[in-house]
């Protein structure tokens, strides 16, 4: 029910005063209401739910997540340090192996 699918905005137009557009979902083109994304431009990617675009996909964050999956392990340690410095929770981290050591070395 909350399924929402990414698609590429091909065309933006006005229909009876409502901001509408044509969105391409891997070859299938559908008419979508764009009223909730006034800044969306042709060529942008958006998440569509029951005929409404509800969010513009942020390319930078998308790349960032994919890199995270690529570099898992190495990145984890950097994040760990970040978290420890950013949030003073009073709870000590489980592992605090120094940066640069092989992440596989901590495998149990």
């Amino acid at each position, binding site marked *: *029910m*909350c*399924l*929402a*699918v*990414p698609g*590429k905005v091909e065309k933006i137009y006005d229909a*009876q*005063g*409502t901001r509408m557009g044509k969105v391409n*979902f*891997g070859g299938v083109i*559908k008419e979508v*209401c764009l*009223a*909730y*994304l*006034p800044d969306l431009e042709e060529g942008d*990617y958006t*998440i569509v*739910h*029951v*005929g*409404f675009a*509800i*969010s513009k*996909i*942020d*390319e930078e*964050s*998308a790349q*960032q*997540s*994919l890199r*995270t*999956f*690529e570099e*898992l*392990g190495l990145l*984890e340690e950097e994040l760990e340090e970040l978290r420890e410095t950013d*949030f003073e*929770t009073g*709870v000590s*981290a*489980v592992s605090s192996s120094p940066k640069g050591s092989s992440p596989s070395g*901590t*495998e*149990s």
Partner: protein
Amino acid sequence: MKYLTEYRDGAKAQRLAAEIRRIVTQPWAIMEVCGGQTHSIIRNGIDQILPEQVEMIHGPGCPVCVTPLAAIDKALAIASRPEVIFCSFGDMLRVPGSNDDLFKIKGAGGDVRVIYSPLDAVRIARENPEREVVFLAIGFETTAPANAMAVKLAKQQGITNFSALVSHVLVPPAIETIMNSPGNRVNAFLAAGHVCCVTGFAEYPALAAKYNVPIVVTGFEPLDLLEGIRRTVLQLEKGQAKVENAYPRVVSEQGNRAAQAVIEEVFEVTDRGWRGIGTIPGSGWRLNSDYREFDAEYKFTVSDISTCESPLCRAGEVLKGAIKPNQCQAFGKECTPRTPLGATMVSSEGACAAYYNYGRFVHLERPAIAEQVS
């Protein structure tokens, strides 16, 4: 397809699962609130590649499943009227009412139409001025912008033969109900990405703090889910209870402001009954008084609703995560997607249907969750 296939990579999924295995040291129960996530987890076998200490508990986040029986019975009564064109999302058609479902009403001559977008219902009303067009407006926060816009446009365009039967539900009050229910085992939540896409997640830190549970905003593709689970486990292992966003390409903290404004203009918060769970205070939206003439509940007086559930069905326990679908005696026997006894067997996002469709017939024993040391 861009932004889809790259989040379904099997090798990366294995790597994420291995990482979760590396960091986990004790049993944890994580609830995914959203039915779309339940479907994806079972379909992609994510529960099966996780280390056995991590148990996924399936939550109440399937709007089709929790729409109260009384609302379904009202819908059926209205859809049976000869002057009505009844518009609904496809997955509501087989949801069992006390005696019938929309599919049977259609078979018996009712004008029941499946629509893709709520705006289709407004168009049908414009094209059929001599008929009454009623739209069954259900859903979580995700669907509210679309449903609210349909009503707003109908009013703007003076389409008076359009009305909506609204039964909207809200996620945060449901999280509270789960945490307060006796025997609750949930240690952390994956928050539904597309709900947060609309509402943002500013409401969640208070919940995370109140119940001392990590809440991680999570997407729907296999890698998104595994990343959400990984971040949740990391927090649990560290004894943290923070709100994190593991779906930043779609979700921002403030959500979609334009959508929130229209929701506020059209809806107001109300107590709502959840099928199988009961009434949760402040857990729904209904049309506010400015839009009363578009409210099908006021337009059509429906009396004589006396609801009756199947005595075999344990959907309420399934929805709260107390049992897995295959622990219900009727699962796969009296109850199948062709002969559903409860709504959780109807919707593809219902936990019972997901377990049935992807062959989870046997209940696997999981280690008991150890007492959490604080």
